[in-house]
């Protein structure tokens, strides 16, 4: 599983986030609609009510003058209900009504008012309340105010608004959470497919993606991938067995050919020129045969037959290898130094293990110029694996080419002039894979050109 932060980058999570956005927009729209559908309607209704009352009182004034109006206001104010009344003189002094003071002075003849006021509830506790209505000057100056107490509806409004916000926040949280869960589930399935692909690339051709049998799109993808891998494996097997069969079948005639050259060379009747030509031909035959042997060996390592693994004292084997190559290196004007930790043990095939490290040492000897340095180090890494590194101060390999040189027969342009078939590192990599390890190419020691030589690290699991 990748770190959880990567979850936030997954497509499913982005989709979930978009979904959360849509939910948010929907809830806000709903909020606006509900507000206008409930509170807006309440206000509009109360406005109509207040307006009707105002008109009725205006009519009473027109019919019966100030005396009649006064009487009406006193009567109506005494009634239970949400409507509030105030009658005042033209200077604002209250004549009668629900308030001692006029909450608002009218500027024009009639205008809409919205104000808050002190009131006392049934238990005599003071409360602020809101009211909304109409205030205006009547003919000859008296001021009339009719308003509706919005107290109840304000409470309802508050409740509705709170509920809507709660719904909105819950909706967003839910969609983000469900998005995270969905993307976690999906990324787990995707990770299973990706890890299959990685294992196959690392050489485990037998690995297949898990199919859950739920028939969902991931199963479909896994099945398609497995079918592809089956086909790939078959093709590789065909091409490999064909190649190996060719190498094998060519070996017998080549061996006979070599034998004939050898006996021809032994015969006394040849002149010096013939002899030289025969010797060259024999050399070429040997090169070819070595190459076939290397191909076949590589094929046997890669096809993973039942190699007999045993516990190898790697420290011992490595020290002996350094001791084996050190005199030749010195003879060729190169220094080979070993720095090998004690007691390193690996489970492996002793012959292949020894050959793999020897290939790395020979590779370093081959590509290091005279006066060069080669270091073989072996340590137990903090992760418990054993790392055997051969580092040189030769020309090195550019990072871009490093993966390529591990493939069969690949030789860099710079190496064309030296002998070899380009199988040495391939064999090391194959041996590493057989031992559940890896071969990693990286920078080696600093070289005379100010660059870095090659460092080849064989990383293998330690034996228990």
């Amino acid at each position, binding site marked *: 599983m990748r770190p959880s932060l990567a979850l936030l980058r997954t497509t499913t999570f982005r989709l979930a986030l978009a979904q959360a956005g849509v939910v948010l927009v929907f809830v806000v729209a709903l909020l606006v609609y509900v507000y206008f559908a409930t509170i807006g309607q309440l206000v509009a209704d109360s406005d109509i009510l207040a307006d009707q009352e105002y008109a009725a009182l205006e009519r009473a004034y027109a019919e019966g003058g100030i005396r009649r109006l006064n009487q009406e206001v006193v009567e109506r104010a005494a009634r239970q209900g949400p409507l509030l009344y105030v009658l005042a003189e033209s200077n604002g002094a209250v004549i009668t009504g629900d308030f001692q003071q006029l909450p608002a002075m009218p500027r024009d003849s009639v205008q809409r008012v919205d104000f808050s006021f002190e009131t006392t509830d049934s238990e005599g506790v003071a409360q602020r309340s809101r009211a909304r209505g109409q205030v205006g000057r009547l003919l000859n100056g008296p001021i009339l105010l009719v308003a509706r107490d919005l107290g109840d509806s304000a409470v309802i409004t508050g409740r509705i608004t709170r509920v809507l916000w709660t719904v909105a926040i819950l909706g967003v949280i839910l969609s983000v959470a469900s998005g995270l869960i969905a993307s976690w589930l999906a990324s787990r399935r995707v990770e299973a497919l990706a890890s299959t692909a990685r294992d196959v690339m690392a050489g485990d051709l037998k690995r297949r993606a898990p199919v859950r049998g739920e028939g969902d799109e991931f199963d479909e993808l896994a099945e398609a991938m497995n079918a592809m891998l089956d086909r790939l494996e078959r093709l590789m097997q065909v091409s490999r067995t064909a190649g190996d069969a060719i190498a094998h079948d060519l*070996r017998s005639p080549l061996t006979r050919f070599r034998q004939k050259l050898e006996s021809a060379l032994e015969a006394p009747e040849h002149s010096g020129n013939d002899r030289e030509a025969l010797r060259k031909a024999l050399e070429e035959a040997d090169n070819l045969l070595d190459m076939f042997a290397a191909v076949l060996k590589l094929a046997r390592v890669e096809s993973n037959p039942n190699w007999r693994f045993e516990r190898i004292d790697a420290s011992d084997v490595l020290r002996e290898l350094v001791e084996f*190559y050190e005199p030749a290196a010195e003879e060729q004007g190169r220094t080979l130094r070993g720095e090998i930790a004690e007691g390193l043990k690996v489970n492996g095939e002793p012959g292949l293990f020894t050959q793999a490290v020897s290939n790395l040492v020979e590779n370093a000897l081959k590509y290091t110029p005279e006066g060069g340095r080669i270091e073989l180090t072996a340590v137990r890494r903090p992760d418990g694996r054993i790392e055997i590194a051969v580092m040189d101060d030769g020309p090195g390999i550019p990072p871009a080419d490093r993966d390529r040189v591990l493939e069969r027969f690949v030789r860099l342009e710079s190496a064309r002039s030296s002998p070899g078939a380009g199988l040495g590192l391939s064999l090391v990599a194959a041996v590493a894979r057989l031992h559940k390890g890896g071969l990693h190419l990286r920078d080696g020691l600093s070289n005379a050109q100010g660059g870095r030589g090659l460092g080849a690290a064989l990383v293998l699991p330690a034996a228990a």
Partner: protein
Amino acid sequence: MRVLLVEDDADMAKNLRASLAADEHDVEVASDGEQGQAMAANGGYDVIVLDRMLPKKLGVSVVKELREQGVSTPVLILSALHDEDHRVEGLNAGANDYLGKPFSTRELLARVRALWHGRDRDVQTRLQVGDLEMDLLARTVKRGGKKLDLQPREFRLLEYLMRNAGQTVTRKMLLENVWDYHFDPQTNVIDVHISRLRSKIDRDFAQSLLHTVRGSGYRLEA
């Protein structure tokens, strides 16, 4: 000496027979496993050269059954499959040496001679070649009475050369028997080891003991 060659490839058998005959051996050829086993069991051979892949009976089974019958003639197995496990299998079955194809004729001849020569060498505790003496118990080497100071690996190298004194030993034989390495180093590693050993045993003496056999290997001889 008398050599039994068991090889099914007629062309190969003809060439090998010619080479062995040229090295002054009496050679008889069997072309399949059963015939080879029957001829070997009737005895009289000094060395048996046995191909691994044979019709009727595999080389490994032939060796195993011969050993069970009490036939102790040294056996060299030739194989196209020169891999560790096959080599170990062949040696476990009772073969004395194992040579992967392709091999040079000289390699084969050197090994056939070494097999014959070294039949009962393991009981010795002292080796001597000219005025060079090796004490295998005290692990000391003297030449002309003067003690030589050898590294452990040089000691083993010299021991192998002394046990095969007078015989040509190839680089491959040294690699397999002294170092137990079963691959071909591409550099002249063995030559350098030999020249270091030579400087210790031959430098201060008028007579050279360690000779280079051009194109084949080395020979220790007084």
